[in-house]
């Protein structure tokens, strides 16, 4: 460009108002503005993209652990002595499963430890077991290997979300225990262990005594087929170190272990600041290394209803509730919205009344959604006495909210049909109704459907109005009809986000992911419809 301008000068053309220095400066200024604008725009898009990527990656990384669940395979005794085939409903299945677990760890004798151990498996175990036996009575009569879901804390630990487990460190010297169980003394061949304990937050006491409180990392010495948790260390004679410890898993013998046969497992997160104790960690690690724990696709999450227990909570109830609600919304909002749009756009006289109606419809689209919820509460529940928490009422409230969106989108696409099509139909004697239904409406339909789908997507993500009509209730059953109590996906997300249990954090993200998938699918359908049925004339 600049070359061209200077070449004009070279040819010796007379300087005009378009070629003098001021003009060149103006031109340069214009290009500068353009460049500025281009960079600003690109920057805005890049920033938006960055936030989107950040948001999605956060949700996805949080959600991925919830897609799998750890199961513990236990040999469960279902012989006639335990389960009476005639009275399947009278059996305490939870107790049977718990027995199988405690039988796996015969060394654990104290009631407290047994309770801790039983807590590793989900409280829903009995329900699953009973259901599976009812479905397959062939399981009865003997001992079967059965996979039970783990409790949420155990599950989270195995997913690495509850505690930072450092790498196993080799012990550079021999270890000699005083006993095989209970509180024991350990003698280390050198004092390297003292430095290690200091490094992991041990409290310094008198005479070089080091105490490992629950605020320090846990140091577990694994040797002789068992595990000992160190509680205190002190320097011993001849450069050795003496430690006190508690046996978590019984040792095979009191024989000294050589340096290559013992190692130290460090759990960096102090016991006081995690929801899972050292004992549970050791048990889980033992079960895992024995191959009894496997990670499976989390069908509980996808195909069951809500629960207070994170490992038993599923989205299916909310998905079905959302689906039923959306059906009601579509069935009400689409026909009414499109009819209203056709009337206002094609038939209504343009007078003061229709102008007022038009303005009000546009205003309705901007009314906060919670106001529609209050309206639903006051009118549908209180005045008409319709059922609380029901998809039919939720659908009606969301239909009120979606109506203006559908009307506005439909009117816009009706208006976009060229008048020449209307004239053509009227010109050969089609009546007004024939013109609209034979020609205008089919051409406007892709736009109307796009608007409707976007309105529905909006409604699908709506929480506030449904809180007002009681769809925030904690409902375990999968809704079977339009009047059953139900909740919907965004409300489920809202509730889960509110629960204190750590396990719900992943469930929340996973449910958000499911909602996003539905929204993306709906938007994709809208785009496809627009592409496919868009006509040119």
């Amino acid at each position, binding site marked *: 460009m600049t070359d061209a301008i200077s070449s004009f000068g070279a040819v010796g053309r007379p300087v005009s108002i378009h070629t003098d220095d001021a003009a060149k400066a103006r031109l340069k200024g214009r290009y500068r503005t353009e460049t500025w604008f281009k960079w600003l725009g690109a920057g805005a898009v890049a920033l938006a993209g960055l936030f989107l990527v950040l948001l999605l990656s956060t949700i996805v990384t949080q959600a991925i652990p919830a897609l799998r669940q750890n199961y513990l395979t236990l040999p469960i005794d279902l012989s006639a002595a335990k389960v009476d085939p005639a009275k399947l409903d009278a059996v305490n299945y939870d107790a049977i499963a718990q027995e199988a677990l405690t039988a796996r760890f015969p060394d654990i004798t104290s009631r407290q430890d047994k309770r801790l151990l039983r807590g590793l498996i989900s409280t829903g175990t009995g329900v699953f077991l009973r259901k599976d036996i009812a479905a397959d009575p062939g399981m009865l009569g003997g001992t079967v290997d059965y996979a039970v879901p783990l409790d949420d804390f155990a599950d989270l630990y195995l997913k690495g979300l509850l505690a930072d487990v450092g790498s196993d460190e080799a012990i550079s010297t021999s270890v000699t225990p005083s006993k095989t169980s209970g509180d024991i003394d350990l003698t280390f061949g050198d004092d390297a262990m003292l430095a290690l304990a200091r490094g992991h937050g041990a409290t310094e006491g008198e005479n070089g005594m080091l105490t490992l409180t629950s605020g320090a990392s846990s140091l577990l010495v694994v040797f002789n087929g068992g595990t000992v948790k160190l509680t205190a260390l002190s320097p011993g004679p001849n450069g050795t170190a003496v430690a006190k410890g508690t046996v978590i898993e019984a040792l095979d013998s009191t024989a000294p272990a050589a340096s290559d046969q013992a190692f130290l497992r460090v759990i960096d997160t102090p016991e006081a600041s995690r929801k899972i104790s050292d004992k549970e960690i050791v048990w889980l690690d033992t079960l895992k290394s024995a191959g009894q724990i496997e990670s499976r696709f989390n069908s509980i999450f996808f195909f069951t209803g809500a629960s207070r227990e994170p490992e038993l909570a599923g989205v299916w109830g909310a998905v079905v509730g959302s689906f039923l609600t959306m059906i009601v919304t579509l069935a009400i909002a689409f026909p009414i919205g499109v009819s209203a749009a056709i009337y206002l756009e094609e038939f209504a*006289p*343009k007078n003061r009344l229709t102008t007022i109606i038009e303005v009000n419809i546009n205003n309705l689209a901007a009314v906060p959604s919670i106001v529609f919820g209050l309206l639903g509460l006051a009118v549908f529940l209180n005045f008409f006495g319709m059922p609380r928490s029901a998809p039919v009422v939720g659908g009606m409230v969301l239909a009120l909210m979606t109506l203006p969106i559908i009307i506005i989108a439909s009117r816009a696409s009706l208006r976009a049909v*060229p008048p*020449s*099509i*209307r*004239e*053509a*139909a*009227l*010109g*050969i*004697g*089609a*009546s007004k109704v*024939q013109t609209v239904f*034979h*020609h205008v409406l089919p*051409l406007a339909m892709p736009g109307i459907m796009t608007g409707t789908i976007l309105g529905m997507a909006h409604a699908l993500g709506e929480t506030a109005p449904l809180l007002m009509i009681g769809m925030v209730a904690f409902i375990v059953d999968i809704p079977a009809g339009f009047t059953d109590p139900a909740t919907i996906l965004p409300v489920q997300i809202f509730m889960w986000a509110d629960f204190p249990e750590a396990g719900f954090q992943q469930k929340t993200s996973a449910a958000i992911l499911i909602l996003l998938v539905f929204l993306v699918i709906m938007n994709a359908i809208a785009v496809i419809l627009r592409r496919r049925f868009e*006509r*040119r*004339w």
Partner: protein
Amino acid sequence: MNIMTEAGVEQKLSSGTTAPSIKMKGEKVSVHYGEKRALFDVDLDVRENQVTALIGPSGCGKSTFLRCLNRMNDTIDTARVSGKITLDGEDVYDPKIDVVELRARVGMVFQKPNPFPKSIYENVAYGPRIHGLARSKAELDGIVESSLKKAGLFNEVKDRLLESGTGLSGGQQQRLCIARAIAVSPEVILMDEPCSALDPIATARVEELIDELRQNYTIVIVTHSMQQAARVSQRTAMFHLGYLVEEGATDKMFTNPDDKRTQDYITGRFG
């Protein structure tokens, strides 16, 4: 007033001789668009089986008058028509007249070709179908074929009747629109600058067609082209600023007009 008497004389003549009878008659037709008056007391007759051309500079009211003849102005909310327009002696603005029936009798072809975004067959068959003109599929096929033949389009499209009408060329689209209008068997066909969007070859084709159609239909055509008016019409009406300036046989209008404005317009001195 001068025109009125002239028209009256000719009508008397027509009753006695072979001069064509009057198909449509406008008396003191005025149109308001809201506050703005677009047409001032126009008296104009349309003769049967003749082509009447309406000429005049842009905005002179010729299209407005044309659209009064089949009440297409009804679709404009602000438009208000006064005066009297008759079709075979019946007042078309009489509340008893059904506008659907009127538009079936007085068809229209628009400035821009506007086929429905449907197949060629459907475009032509739509009118007969909604008016119930065909009792069987075969009869409907017959109407479509004869309409396309009359519009001189059949040979070009006979192998692709089920393809979209919007895929045709501009000239073909306009002939399709004419076929669509013919299919309803109207008595009068109104054409609003039917060739303004066409190239000279397509224009010649449509003009030829208009001349042929004159045998069976009464045609009113609005045009901006003096040559076209001279070529296709038997009678010409000159509009200016909403007034009918002059009306008469096309030969006379183009050789020896009474009004100076007509002369100036035809010779290209204004407009």
